[in-house]
């Protein structure tokens, strides 16, 4: 698609003088809105080095990306906040699209309450489930003895989002099994606002967002059987913070890896996954450790070799 | 100006004119002509301009009470303009400008303190094209009363107006139907009923029958004859025969907005003073 037009010296956004390493071509990414900030940040950085490369990033949702783009051979990468589903695998192979999964960061879903809420500091997974399952408890006192007899106000992610999917599976253990009695929203700001407005509110969203709002809401520890663990970069990286830390991926298409500039971009993407400044500070996810990153890089290089 | 003499001479005519029943070959209304006349409307040196073109030129005349006064003259001579001055309908035309005096019961209607809306409530108007509102017959007739907040005995007043306009028998069982569904002649009588329902003192009619067929026209003419018992009627018409048939007084305007002659209808038609009027009446031009 698209004619490559290297001789395009017009615009300031164009190639201008420095041609970097002379890489030239198009790269397209689509998929998860959760991964979108990472992808576009990485793309922005790569673009800075290789002005001849043209990258587009679309936020379509993981599933939309697989169904409409990636498995039809229309994109080079699909970002995903979950692993590829069976149906999507089938779809891909029907179209002859071979893929490789890259772990680009970890997201720690954070359960939050009001800063002033002092009766609760942590919840067990079981208690969390009783709050969010399809037929949930109504008051805090039903969650744990000693909690006040007040109605729970719930704020969570919209049901069409990957965050919702992941939270439901991790906490309730079944796809889509989530209460309907909650304020669903696309805008994490609203969850913060809602929770900071009531002592008896509870909500969840990505760790990234919590980091920017530590003064307004408080994160709960999660007890998965080994005692309560507070969410942090370290606990998430180490896997202690379970089950609410989830890996974020990008899926690379094999055919695309034959192109030098795309393969180079894939390597760059992986290398950036351990970039603490970019992933953690600037975006707010949990970066890979150097070790994890090198492992990913080896696998990727193998995959590129195959292609 | 030369022509002024004519005009002025008309204005200074006696107010008390004895009608001569024997002379009324053309006028069919001899029997109802009253012997004394009191003036309801009087114009004094009236001039009207539309932007820079003058439509009425120094017109002075007195319109007597409870008579039918006809205005005739070729197209564009200012008949409608004069009529529309009387109830200040010309206010609605931005370009129109009026000078001189126009007295209604002795009060200049163009005085600062005259509210044209109040004025129009005492001077009814009927137009060339029947223009009933797209409302029921009843609501058409009641309209004037309603805007004047005189809604007591509404049914009665509506009925009386329709009877007065000789329409009651034809529409009494369809008062709720739209006024637009009537025939042209009926519509025009409805408009007359609408105008008289609010008991005006004067009724102005601008070629009320020119859009109608002969049968409807003759009904309207009969009606006008009737109306003059109670109302002062001022009527503009193109049709000389009609003016002769229905009016007591006739004013002849000629091109340029001059009033060339004004007097008893039978005199004007049988023995016009001015040659130009004679030429006009006998159809030499116009």
């Amino acid at each position, binding site marked *: *698609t*698209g*004619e490559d*037009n290297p*001789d*395009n*010296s*017009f*615009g*300031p*956004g*164009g190639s201008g003088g420095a041609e970097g390493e002379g890489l030239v071509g*198009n790269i*397209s990414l*689509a998929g998860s809105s959760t991964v979108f*900030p990472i992808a*576009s*940040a990485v*793309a*922005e950085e790569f*673009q800075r080095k290789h002005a001849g490369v*043209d*990258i*587009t*990033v*679309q*936020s*379509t949702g993981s599933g939309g990306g697989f169904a*409409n*783009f990636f498995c039809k051979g*229309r994109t080079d990468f699909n970002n995903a906040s979950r692993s590829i589903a069976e149906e999507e695998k089938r779809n891909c192979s029907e179209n002859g699209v071979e893929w490789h999964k890259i772990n680009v960061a970890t997201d720690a879903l954070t359960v939050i309450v009001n800063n002033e809420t002092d009766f609760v500091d942590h919840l067990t997974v079981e208690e969390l489930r009783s709050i969010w399952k399809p037929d949930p408890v109504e008051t805090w006192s039903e969650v744990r003895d000693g909690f006040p007899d007040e109605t729970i106000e719930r704020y969570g992610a919209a049901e069409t989002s990957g965050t919702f999917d992941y939270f439901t599976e991790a906490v309730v253990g079944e796809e889509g099994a989530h209460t309907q009695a909650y304020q669903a929203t*696309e*805008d*994490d*700001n609203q969850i913060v606002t809602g929770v900071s407005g009531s002592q008896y509110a509870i909500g969840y969203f990505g760790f*990234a*967002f919590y980091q*920017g709002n530590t003064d307004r809401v408080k994160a709960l520890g999660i007890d998965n059987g080994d005692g309560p663990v507070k969410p942090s970069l370290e606990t998430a990286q180490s896997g202690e913070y379970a089950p609410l830390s989830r890996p974020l991926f990008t899926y690379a298409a094999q055919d695309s890896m034959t192109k030098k500039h795309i393969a180079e971009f894939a390597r760059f993407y992986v290398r950036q996954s351990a970039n603490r400044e970019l992933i953690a500070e*600037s*975006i707010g996810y949990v970066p890979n450790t150097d070790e994890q990153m090198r492992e990913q890089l080896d696998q990727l290089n193998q995959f590129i070799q195959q292609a | 100006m030369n022509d002024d003499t004519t005009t002025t001479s008309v204005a200074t005519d006696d*107010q008390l004119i004895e009608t001569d029943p024997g002379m009324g070959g053309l006028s069919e209304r001899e029997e109802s002509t009253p012997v*004394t006349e*009191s*003036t*309801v409307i*009087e114009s004094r040196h009236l001039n009207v301009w539309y932007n820079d073109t003058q439509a009425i030129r120094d017109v002075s005349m007195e319109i007597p*009470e409870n008579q039918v006064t006809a205005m005739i003259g070729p197209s564009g001579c200012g008949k409608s303009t004069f009529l529309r001055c009387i109830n200040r309908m010309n206010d609605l035309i931005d370009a129109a400008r009026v000078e001189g005096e126009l*007295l*209604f*019961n*002795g*009060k200049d209607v163009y005085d600062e*303190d*005259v*509210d044209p*809306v*109040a*004025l129009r*409530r*005492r001077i009814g108007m009927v137009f060339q094209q029947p223009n009933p509102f797209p409302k029921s017959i009843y609501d058409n007739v009641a309209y004037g009363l309603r805007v004047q907040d005189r809604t007591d005995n509404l049914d009665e007043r509506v009925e009386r107006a329709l009877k007065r306009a000789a329409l009651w028998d034809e529409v009494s069982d369809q008062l709720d139907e739209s006024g637009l569904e009537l025939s042209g002649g009926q519509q025009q009588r409805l408009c007359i009923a609408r105008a008289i329902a609010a008991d005006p003192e004067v009724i102005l009619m601008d070629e009320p029958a020119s859009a109608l067929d002969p049968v409807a026209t003759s009904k309207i003419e009969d009606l006008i004859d009737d109306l003059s018992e109670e109302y002062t009627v001022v009527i503009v018409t193109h049709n000389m025969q009609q003016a002769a048939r229905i009016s007591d007084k006739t004013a002849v305007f000629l091109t340029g907005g001059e009033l060339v002659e004004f007097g008893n209808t039978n005199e004007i038609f049988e023995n016009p003073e001015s040659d130009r009027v004679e030429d006009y009446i006998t159809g030499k031009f116009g």
Partner: protein
Amino acid sequence: MTAAESAESRDTEFGSVSQVKGVAFEYLTLAASLVGIVALAVLLGYVSADALGVGPAEPAWFLVFLLTLVVPAIGFVWYAARTPGVADVLERLVVRVIGGAELAVALVVLFIVSDVQFWFLLYTVGVVPAAALVLYGRVADDPRVEFPVPLVVLVVGLLAGYLLKGPVDTFPIDVLIALWMLGVPVASYFGLRWRARAGTVAGVLVGLGILAGATAAGFGLAAVSGLGPEAGFVVALTPGVLVASYAAEVALDEPVGRRGLLFPVVLLVGALLGQAVVTALGLAGPEPWLDAQFLTSAPSRFAEQAGLYPAIIGSVFIISLVAVFSFVFGVGCAVYLEEYAPQSGYGGMATNVVQVNIANLAGVPSVVYGLLGLGIFVNLIGLGFGIVLVAAMTLSLLILPIVIISSQEAIRSVPDSQRQAAYGMGATRWQTVKSVVIPEAVPGILTGSILALGRAIGETAPLIIIGLPTTVFNAPTGLFGKGSAMPMTIYGWAFLPDEAFREGVLAAGVVTLMVILLSINSVAIYVRNNYQRGS
């Protein structure tokens, strides 16, 4: 009994009917007419304040520019409004600046998004020979170059150009291409115009002067702005020559009107003076989000570095395509319905159905057009996701009914007597349409179409549905290239958590979009007011 006497017995007090209700109502209607406009103006005021970052500016800073720039400018406009010739000149000058700038942006975009060398081939091998033939036919009256011949030459030439694209690989540099494709025609046009005025020598001088001046200005602009010399050249050539030529004519022909040319001087002097004063006094000015950097950089996750450049180019490219598609098909359809379609019998019924269908299409929600684009262009035809062409085709269909309906109205307003006259002269239907109907209807058609384009430039929902990306870093390259559009990028910013995006970058985006939109619409309104029938 005189009138006065008779009056004694009568009621001469007309009284007055209470007008309070009426006056109150009149003001109510006036207020209603203004409420929406005022509300929008206030909100846009806030957005502009955010976009221009007036927060940190000191009041004195505003005062200085109020005195040096705003007051003189308003004073000048006030003076112009009262001096007939000057007002005209001022209005035409402003419109030429705006129109020229729009043209320049469109042309620069064309050079950016497309393969200039390809255009060069098509132009040189196709357009030039065909145009030369037509011209020769006109001048020499040669029946051999009648109607189909130039068309055939054009088609063959374009095809040849297309085929040559592969084998030919040496091209003149872009500046020369721009000079050949733009400079020569523009210079010839103005050269001929001045020849008619002031003789052959003057014409040649003007032509050469334009070429030389534009080239020099192009390189000059390139040096200061960082744009390529071609872009500078285009800018110097379109608004530059348009305005300069107009100014020269005014200066020579209109002794009163030429005072209007002082307006730019007033602005320039005011701005420089104001700048000098605030620098001298050390006054803090606004820190605008909407600045050159914003307009020339790609999106970024850092608010300070974020820009709208690729989206602006994407939008302009898409809108240019939409203009072509919707104009061609819209006007074609309108001409068919008004001039060709059967009006009675079964054909008439079919015409009627088409007519009703168009009215209904105008009422279909834009998001549904998105599904149309997704279903037909993306999935059925398989043109591809998120590409410029699909976006342009979808938006074209979206505004097509509006263009058709307004063009029909324009065509209908051409008096029938004109058509009769043409047919009576033995003109064919097409000749009548071409030489009588369309020239008369063009202002109306243009007005309606430009307003419709304004609608298209702000449409977002269908673009979301067809999957246009919110983030791209480069301007689109070609019809099948991926590109974004201003409203898409702005939409993306609306949901970013970073406050700086919401309050600064977003506002800058909104203001950019509105400025482009309003400048498009003002041209439409100018066309309507100045070229309406009978003027």
